[in-house]
């Protein structure tokens, strides 16, 4: 006996010949070609589907009733009532519902059921469960009840667990949603408990406890035997699964690389082909592409904003692009920008001053030195951060530069000295220029071991100043 037979006939009114005579219908295949016959008499808003699917978003238990109602063009309440009534026939409705849940795929709808519908459906489901218990009780007395009640418990437990495994979205290893909530776990555990309890009641009610021992041993031995016999099978399945997974990961990696190359290298090569007669532009494109690709291949993509080394490399790249020179940055050690005043990093003002001065020095070298390469070296030591910007270009006579127009000295030296640092400029005409920038590490974070004379303040100016003088006079 099929639950949908009568409902179907009622809905169709005047069924096509031969169609109404087929009371059963295959839940998997759905209607088949018969559906394209006469238009349904009763269309309740939802478009009838060719293939039977369960409701996904609009489901209350398994979405079976809703799916059936959509499929048959019926009111969902009637379908649910049919299941309730069938449940009274020794639980046939429950079994049918379960089978349909197993064998039909879930649909793609997302509309949530209204609160009224939800309450009504839950009420009907409880009514069906109650009816099946009550009717079997009436018909067969207490013995059948002993069986029906546990079966209902098992059904409810299974429904609880199935619902959790039946949701869309990313999955974890066990098949549960990737980030299971407490409710999910509670449902799974409760469902599993109900299944185990229900089955246990059925088994224990039937089996003599004294005979249980040997039976259990037999079962255990059988299980162990079966397990041992199928070990190679399991292993092969595991291996196949692993191979497949590895292949998939490799493929994904390959696709990622391909898409990156497409976005970067191939685009640049296309640009270069178009502008082949502009050597400067070609060099600029090639340089920036090389830098980008190098970064992608050889450097970790960590949080770069607060790293001095990363910031310096970025600035070097910008100067390269804007001024058409090649900057080779070398950094030793690193320091982060001290955002929360913990004393380990470099205070924000010092950090930005250092970056600004370094950029200015590089831009100056790019503009005035007249050479294609600039060396940038930064070293982070416990007590100070030093940056050296060096070119082998024209150079100039420091003493000959009028004091009032030292843009270089102002923008670089001023910035650094306001933060307690030191700048030395070393230049020889014809042999290039080196700008040396020293920034003391934060006074609070200075370790005990650091020499006292490098601490910022009046004492700190003396030695550095002396060095600068000696450097100047030495040249």
């Amino acid at each position, binding site marked *: 006996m099929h639950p949908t037979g009568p409902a179907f006939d009622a809905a169709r009114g005047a069924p096509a010949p031969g169609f109404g005579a087929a009371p059963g219908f295959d839940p998997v295949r759905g209607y088949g070609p018969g559906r394209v016959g006469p238009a349904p008499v009763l269309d309740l808003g939802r478009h009838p589907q060719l293939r039977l699917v369960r409701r996904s978003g609009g489901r209350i238990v398994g979405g079976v009733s809703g799916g059936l109602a959509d499929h048959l063009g019926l009111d969902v309440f009637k379908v649910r009532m049919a299941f309730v009534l069938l449940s009274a026939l020794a639980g046939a409705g429950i079994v049918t519902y379960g089978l349909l849940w197993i064998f039909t795929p879930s649909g793609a709808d997302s509309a949530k059921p209204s609160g009224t519908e939800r309450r009504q459906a839950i009420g009907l489901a409880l009514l069906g469960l109650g009816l099946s218990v009550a009717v079997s009780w009436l018909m067969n007395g207490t013995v059948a009840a002993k069986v029906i009640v546990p079966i209902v418990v098992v059904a409810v437990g299974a429904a609880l667990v199935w619902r959790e495994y039946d949701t869309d979205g990313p999955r974890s290893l066990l098949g549960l949603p990737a980030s299971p909530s407490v409710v999910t776990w509670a449902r799974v555990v409760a469902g599993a408990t109900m299944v185990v309890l229900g089955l246990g009641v059925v088994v224990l009610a039937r089996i003599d406890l004294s005979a249980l021992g040997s039976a259990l041993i037999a079962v255990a031995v059988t299980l162990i035997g079966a397990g041992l016999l199928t070990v190679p099978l399991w292993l092969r399945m595991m291996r196949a699964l692993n191979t497949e997974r590895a292949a998939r990961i490799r493929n994904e990696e390959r696709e990622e690389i391909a898409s990156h190359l497409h976005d970067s290298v191939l685009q640049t090569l296309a640009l270069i082909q178009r502008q082949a007669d502009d050597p400067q532009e070609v060099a600029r494109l090639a340089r920036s592409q090389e830098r980008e690709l190098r970064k992608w*291949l050889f450097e970790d993509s960590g949080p770069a904003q607060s790293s001095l080394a990363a910031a310096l490399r970025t600035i070097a790249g910008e100067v390269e692009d804007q001024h058409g020179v090649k900057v080779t940055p070398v950094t030793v*050690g690193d320091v982060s920008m001290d955002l929360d005043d913990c004393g380990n990093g470099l205070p924000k003002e010092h950090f930005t001053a250092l970056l600004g001065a370094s950029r200015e020095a590089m831009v100056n070298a790019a503009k005035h030195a007249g050479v294609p390469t600039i060396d940038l070296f930064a070293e982070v*030591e416990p007590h100070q951060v030093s940056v050296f910007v060096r070119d082998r270009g024209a150079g100039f006579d420091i003493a000959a530069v009028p004091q009032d127009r030292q843009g270089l000295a102002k923008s670089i030296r001023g910035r650094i000295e306001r933060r307690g640092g030191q700048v030395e400029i070393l230049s020889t005409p014809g042999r290039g220029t080196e700008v040396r920038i020293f920034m003391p590490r934060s006074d609070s974070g200075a370790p005990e071991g650091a020499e006292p004379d490098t601490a910022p303040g009046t004492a700190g100016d003396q030695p550095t100043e002396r060095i600068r003088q000696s450097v100047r006079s030495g040249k």
Partner: protein
Amino acid sequence: MRVFLVDDHAVFRSGVRAELSREADMEVVGEAGGVAEAIAGIKSTRPDVVLLDVHMPDGGGVAVLAGIEDGPVCLALSVSDAAEDVIAVIRAGARGYVTKTISGAELADGIRRVAGGDAVFSPRLAGFVLDSFTGRSPVPEPPLDPELDSLTPRELEVLRLLARGYTYREIAENLFISVKTVETHASNVLRKTQQSNRNALTRWAHRRRID
């Protein structure tokens, strides 16, 4: 000067061959595109200098260096300037490391210098050695080895100037020492950076998930 080329890209090999053919004192005596081929070729041709690619299938430059113990001096030539690659190949015994953006003349100069027993330090390489030595690198990278602690203050000073882009001659002027002394310091740094035995090298490489 007899040079042997090892690189898995034929186009790059022919490019280097063309560049070096402009130098009067250079002769490319052989080339190889794989590790086994390279080891056999180097053993049979006995070149003065091996130009060695770092990244190759089946082990790369480190594998070649392991296969030609007590062979000719090697200059690593790679497109990568990642610290791991540089340090690994230097520790395996290469006498210098240059990147493939180098010009032909600079490459020839580098070959002459390694052939003469010098270490060829690029500023970047000096930076890596300094970085590993100081152990202040933010990347979780263990400080190399106690052996490195034996770097003298003078050697560190030389390394710092190298990292700043100074030439050996300029360093000599700066420190008031002879160029020969600078070269000795650089070679000492390289010698101290290398592992004393191959087991340690294997351990070290394994630790860094190389090969």
